[in-house]
Structure formats: C-alpha cells, structure tokens
C-alpha cells in the first residue's frame, strides 16, 4: 500500500489546522494509477488555504483525470509545524487525494502564481525527496514542471525545473502526458535527457536544460538552444475558445476554511484594457469570452452541486463581459429558495458597475473595492488606466448613495515618471471620496491600500528600473504624513522590502537560481507571509552569490538589451511593447482594441485567433479606456447589447457611438 496516511495520522494532532492535510473534499477525484498511466502531482507551493481555490490547478486536475492515460492528485506546501514533524519522521511530501508519496508520481507540476513562492517550490521538491537541482535527477525521478503566470519568465527557476508550460495549460498537459507515456512505454529511450528533448518539441513547453545562457561582461547576451530541433523561441499556448473548456465541472469544496471560499466561474480570459503595469492583462490576450448560456449553466449547476451561497464571476474585468447584467440578474433570480450573492472580484471604476453591484449585494452589503491604481490623471495616462477623477467620484458617490459606507481603493506607487505630486494625488482622491460620502452616510470610510510597483516581463514596463526600498518608503511616508489627520481615511501599504525580493525574482535571469536556493537553504520558506519574510536573507544571498541587486532590479533596461525572457513569447511583439513604453513616457493613452482598430500587439495575429466578444459595443460606463465619450454616472442607460459571437465581431469598428 502506497498511502502514507497511517504515518501521517499520528502527527496531525500536533499540527495546526490538521484539516488541510486530509483531502476528502467534494469534487475529489479517484485517481487510477498503474501501467500505461502517467501520474501527475499538481502542487501549489503555498498553504492549502491559499492553494485549494486556484482555478488553474483545479481545471488541469479534472482534465487529466478525464484522460484514460493520466491520473492527477494534488499537494500543497505543509505549514512549518507539520513540515518539522515530517522531516523528523522522514515522511515525504504527499498527495491529499490518496496520501501517496510525491516521488512515486511521474510528474510533479507546480502552479507559479507569485514569485515569492519560489523558495517553497524548492522546499516542496526537497520534501518530495527528489534532488532540488534538475541536473541531480535520475531516469526514474519525477519530472518537475511548472505552469501559471510566473512561467512567462521561469529563468530564476531554470536550475530546478525540468520543464515549464507557457500560457494556457488545458491542451499542453495532454500533449505532455502523451510524450511521457510514450517514453515510459517504450523503455525510457535516451534516459531523462531523451524525454526532456521530446518535451522541448511540444508547443508551449520550455525545457531550460535544452538552452544555454551566454553572458558577457556580467550581462546576459543570449539564451540559445543547444540542439537544432529545439525551438529558438518558445511560444505560449492559447486555447481558442473557452466554450470548449467548461472547467472546473466539479469544483472542489473544501472541508476547512480557505480564501475565496465560494463557487468561481470564469467568464472570460484575457484583457485588452491595456493597463501597462498589468502582466496578467498582457500575457493572456486575446480576450475569449465564455458564452453567456454556458456561464448560466455552470453557475446554476455549480450552486446546486456545491451548496455554496456565493458565486464569483471571475475575469480580469468582469463588468466588461458582454451581457453581464442579464447573467447577474439570472443568477440572483434563479437561485431558488436560498439566498445567493454574486461577487465580481475585479470591479471597474464607474457608476454602471456600482449599479450591478447594488443589484447583487442585496443580501450582504459589505464593502466595495475599486482600483484606480494612480492618484492623478497624468499618472493614469502613463499607466494606461484611463479613468478620470470624475469616473472615480461618480462611482464612489453612486456607491454611497446606494448605502455603502466603506470603500477600499487600491493604488500603486513607484510607477514610471511618478512625481511627489502624483503620489500625493492618492491622498487627495481619498479625501475627496470621504467628503462625497458625508452627504450620504454618517461616517463614510475609505481604506487606501498602496503597493510598491514591481515591473513584470512582457509588459511595456519591463524596461523600467523599479524604485528602491528607500524610495518606496519615502513615498509611503509622504502619504502617511499627508493623511495623518484625514478623518475617515485609513492607509495600508505593502512592505516595500517584499517588493524588492519580488522584483529580483520577477525579471531575474538564471543566475537568480543560486540566490533562491541560498535563501531556501537558510530557512526562507513562506516568503509571501510577512511574518516569515526577511529581506536581510535575500540581500545576504545576493551578496554571497555575487548578484548585483541594483543591476537586476533598479536599473532601467536599454532598448537593445537582451532580456532574460527574450527566448520566450507571450505573443506580444517586442517592438509593440517598446512603442507602448515610449507612449507611456509621453503620457499617451491607448484605447481598448476590442472596440477600436488593432494595434498589432501580436497576440491575435500570431496565433491566428481573434478576440471572442459577444458585443461589438463597448459597455456603458465612464471613459474606461474605450476612448468613447460615453456618458457617465447614474444617467447612463445601463443596458447592454447582447450579440452572438461572430468571427469578426471583436474587430468591428463602432464609430457611431463615439
């Protein structure tokens, strides 16, 4: 019997929150292991509470288990107390589904959603009792893979990963299963190098060991394939139509508390708002909407099956979904006897959105969150978040007038060209929002949450030198001083020290691997958790490994410079990104290409697919990057046109409504 349950069970009474190690969730699959089966351990390198709701992992879990030639189970990073017990008992990392030792799987695949989890990736490989460095693994050791947004630059983990999947994983996991299955079935020809060579030929699969990094005078000058049959540039995978992938069909319902503990239905993937700081919006293009009818079915069946009373319609900007109003109304009204609330995690800043929110939060009206991201219109043109102050004020006024008392506003600081006037504009906006609230409710409150900006690969800001910790602290200090006596405004901020470590891992090249390993070997796990984060450990590691932090993080990169991820592609042309970077520096905004002509960013043309958008008309609301002078505030006709998706609909010009 390969289950570790009976060894784990006596340890659990000594572990905090033991329910996160038991599995048994509704929706758990019954994996079939055996000959001819490629087994996957899908691993989230943070705690169960954070990792369980991850939609990417759940989607692949179902897709793999539906295949006759694959079996998938799940693992999460054990918390520090259980890890210590496991290490003292010699117990390896295990799956939750059948408590199978991790090393018995053919593939251990990590979801990389955040750079600060990288040290946990190393820790999980080590706990699996597999060599942490890829070069130390033998023919029968599991293949260590990764997917998720951070694989757009997997170079800092290049020494530890056997492969990384770029882009959507739905189709790639099947291709990988077939390659690994064939290799195993035919006696592992060529050993480990043989299967890696074959994997490197799968579209969207990047095998770091098949590439050589070349440095000159301390600078990366090339990352080159070692073999002629290995692609010089690895393109990401993109599924053309979400309607073909109605997953998860059986969302996992955890037995213990997790974040986002609700039904989640993805309504579209991709975003063309074009916010220049937003990596997710850039690398997931083009926009692919799920048909409204399928959304309705997934919502109603999901609620009935799970027993949840809350559903989130997820995407990068859900109010942009064609026909969002009707879908929301159907959900709220079609729920039957029990009360269902709907949440829209990424609210657009306009009164129209607030109108939808009022409709759906009838049951439990807690707080509203908006993300203006920057304090002045000038700054928002730079970052291409084209909402005017009036857009924000009308949204906030509309919310207060409909009974909300608490508002949360998200901002970034340390943005390109940011001046102190821009930073202080954040405080100004917050104060004005509270003032607006006073005419509607007794004690309005606005929470301002400020994060230090970290430039990400495949964005126009990938060339920008991140602000230093000292500079970010100074800017937060400006806001603290300015808001010290502002009634009703609470200021919260993200630790600038953590932003530095994130920046190091985000745009680093392969030399960062040594730093990550150094931090991990000195106990630096769970770096996403502020109580475990220690910048000193990262600085010591960088200095021990001879890594110049300034050069990697704070330096502006040049146009002709080789970037660590230049041999990978998220579909975006590098010259498009550079032009967008120049536009940013000139404070030129760029309209949403769903409703305006194509800028040839490369995402559609490169993959021969189109935006799949059911409405050719931009949604009502504020200016919102559409470039349209749509009326704003409560007076907008909150009615959307719903159309059948047509091949060209995403491209249709709508000059009439401008």
């Amino acid at each position, binding site marked *: 019997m390969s289950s570790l*349950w009976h060894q784990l069970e006596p340890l*659990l009474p000594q572990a905090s*929150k*033991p*329910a996160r190690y*038991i599995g048994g969730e509704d929706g758990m699959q019954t994996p079939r292991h055996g000959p001819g089966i490629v087994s996957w351990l899908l691993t989230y390198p943070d705690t169960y509470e954070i990792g369980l709701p991850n939609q990417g992992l759940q989607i692949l879990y179902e897709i793999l288990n539906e295949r006759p030639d694959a079996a998938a189970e799940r693992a999460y990073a054990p918390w520090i107390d259980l890890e210590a017990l496991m290490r003292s008992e010699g117990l390896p990392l295990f799956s939750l589904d059948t408590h199978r030792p991790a090393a018995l799987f053919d593939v251990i695949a990590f979801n990389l959603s955040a750079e600060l989890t990288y040290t946990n990736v190393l820790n999980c490989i080590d706990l699996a009792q597999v060599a942490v460095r890829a070069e130390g693994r033998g023919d029968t050791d599991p293949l260590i893979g990764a997917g998720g947004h951070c694989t757009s630059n997997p170079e800092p983990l290049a020494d530890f990963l056997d492969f990384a999947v770029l882009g959507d994983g739905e189709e790639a996991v099947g291709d990988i299963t077939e390659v690994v299955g064939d290799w195993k079935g035919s006696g592992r020809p060529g050993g480990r190098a043989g299967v890696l060579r074959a994997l490197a030929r799968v579209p969207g699969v990047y095998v770091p060991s098949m590439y050589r990094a070349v440095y000159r005078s301390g600078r990366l000058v090339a990352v080159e394939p070692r073999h002629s049959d290995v692609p010089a540039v690895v393109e990401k995978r993109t599924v053309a139509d979400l309607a073909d992938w109605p997953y998860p069909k059986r969302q996992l319902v955890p037995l213990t508390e997790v974040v986002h503990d609700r039904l989640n239905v993805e309504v579209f993937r991709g975003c063309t708002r074009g916010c220049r700081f937003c990596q997710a919006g850039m690398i997931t293009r083009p926009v692919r909407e799920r048909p409204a009818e399928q959304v309705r079915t997934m919502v109603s069946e999901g609620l009935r099956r799970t*027993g949840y009373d809350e559903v989130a319609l997820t995407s990068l900007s859900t109010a942009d979904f064609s026909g969002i109003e009707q879908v929301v109304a159907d959900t709220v009204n079609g729920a039957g*006897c*029990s009360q269902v609330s709907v949440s829209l995690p990424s609210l657009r800043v306009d009164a129209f959105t607030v109108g939808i929110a009022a409709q759906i939060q009838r049951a*439990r009206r807690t707080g509203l969150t908006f993300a203006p991201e920057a304090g002045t219109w000038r700054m928002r043109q730079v970052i291409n978040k084209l909402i005017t102050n009036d857009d924000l004020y009308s949204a906030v006024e509309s919310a207060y007038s409909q009974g909300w008392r608490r508002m949360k506003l998200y901002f970034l600081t340390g943005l390109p060209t940011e001046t102190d006037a821009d930073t202080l504009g954040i405080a100004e906006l917050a104060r004005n929002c509270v003032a607006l609230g006073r005419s509607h409710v007794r004690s309005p409150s606005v929470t301002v949450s400020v994060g230090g900006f970290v430039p990400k690969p495949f964005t126009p800001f990938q060339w920008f030198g991140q602000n230093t910790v000292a500079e970010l602290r100074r800017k937060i200090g400006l806001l603290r001083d300015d808001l010290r006596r502002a009634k009703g405004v609470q200021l919260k901020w993200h630790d600038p020290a953590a932003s530095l470590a994130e920046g190091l891992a985000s745009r680093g090249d392969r030399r960062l691997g040594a730093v990550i390993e150094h931090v991990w070997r000195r106990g630096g796990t769970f770096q996403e958790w502020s109580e475990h984060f220690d910048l000193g450990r990262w600085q010591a590691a960088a200095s021990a490994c001879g890594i110049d932090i300034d050069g990697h993080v704070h330096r502006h990169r040049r146009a002709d410079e080789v970037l660590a991820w230049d041999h990978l592609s998220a579909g975006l042309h590098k010259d498009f990104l550079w032009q967008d970077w120049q536009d940013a520096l000139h404070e030129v905004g760029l309209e949403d290409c769903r409703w305006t002509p194509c800028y040839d960013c490369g995402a559609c043309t490169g993959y021969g697919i189109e935006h799949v958008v059911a409405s050719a008309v931009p949604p009502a609301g504020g200016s919102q990057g559409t470039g349209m002078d749509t009326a704003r505030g409560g007076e907008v006709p909150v009615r959307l046109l719903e159309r059948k998706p047509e091949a060209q609909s995403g491209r249709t010009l709508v000059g009439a409504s401008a």
Partner: protein
Amino acid sequence: MSRRRLRARFSKHGKVRFTSHRDVARIWERSLRRARVPVAYSAGFSPRPKIAFGLALPTGYSSDAEYLDVEVDPAWEAGIDDGTLVGALTASLPTGMTALAAAELAGGEPSLQHAVTSCTWRIDAAAASAREVSEAVSRAMDSSELLVQRERKGRLSTDDIRPAVHAVEVQPNINDGVRLIAELATQPRAARPGELLASLRVPLTLLRACRLHQWIATDAGERREPLAVAELSVAGAGVAP
C-alpha cells in the same frame, strides 16, 4: 408565529474528524442547502442561517453523538420525520459524516448547549500497564478531589474535576494500551477526556477519543439523549474510528 425546529444527530469518523467545530458548521450550512432543507435566516444587515450546534467536539476526536438544531421555514412541506431526510442529509455530507436521526423539536425545548449535562466518551490511550491504569482509576473514583492544571489567558489555574467525573470503566483489551469508557459532565465545570487522563497521574498518552453519547439529566434523576432512543435509527453508530 410558530418556530419550526429540526434536530439532527450525526456521527463523525475517519479523516474528516480533523475538521474543526467551525469547519463542521460550514459543512452543515452547505449540506443543508444541497439537501434542499429550507433553513430560516436571521433578519438584518448580514443574514445568517439559523443553525445551532451543541458542545464543540475537539478537533481530531470522532463521535457517534453530534447534534445540531436547525430552524426551518414553517411552510416546509416535506416531512421531517420522513426517513428520506436522514438519507438525503447523509448523501450531502462528506465521507465520514453520517446523519443518524432527525426529528422535529417540540416547542420550548431548550438549546443543546443548555440542555446537555454529560457525555460518554471512549478514550484509547497508550499505557505501559493496564493494571496500573485500573488502579489509578479506582483511586481517582475513591478520592474526593481530582486536581488538574489548566491554562487560561496565559495563567495556570488548578481545578478540581472530581465532581465532573461521573463514571469510568477500564477495558484493558486494545493493542497498545487501555480503553476507558467515561461519563464526564459538561456543566457547571466540564471535564475533558484529556483532563481525565492527566488527573490519573500515571503515564498515559491519548491516542483516540470518541464521543459515544450526549446526555440530558431529567428532573426525575434519569438521563436521556437529545434525540430519544425511540426516534433513533442508529445504523451507522458504533463504527470504529
């Protein structure tokens, strides 16, 4: 306006016993919705389903005798006593949790928290010598006080749990130690299985504990279960942990 309340008894065994009391509350909220039981909600800003649980079962313990009271829509047509409800609830609960019985509560029945006065526990503990444990239990039952230390708000205090220990039986026949069947009071001062073991002052390590019964003391000096035996269909009761 008459309130209509449903009381259900359920067991908790196996892996799912590592869920906490709060986890179990959330599990029940979802399971009742899945079983299409029309739970009543509180009024106000943040409506909550009207579900009341009895005494918390410590995380990691199993049980044959967990209870909850649910206020339901008075207009609910489906019969509460109908055997199909128990089956529907079990089908909606996770593996390891089984609905054992359900019945409509008479008006004025006090809450579980107030009504329950003692519990019967099956406690398996690792021990060097079963005889030594038997002797320690005899001594404990003969003595007038049983002192245990407990930490409260960071301060140690000493409590006498003897009044809360109603009965203890020792069964020396498990593999690696002893099995105690103990009836421990839940009020005014509750005694927990771990405290009973500590009070015996012999080397004992708790391995497994299972709540077998909850009891309500009657005015007549007798005891009854929150769901009377006649209404019980304890098919799943007594399952080994």
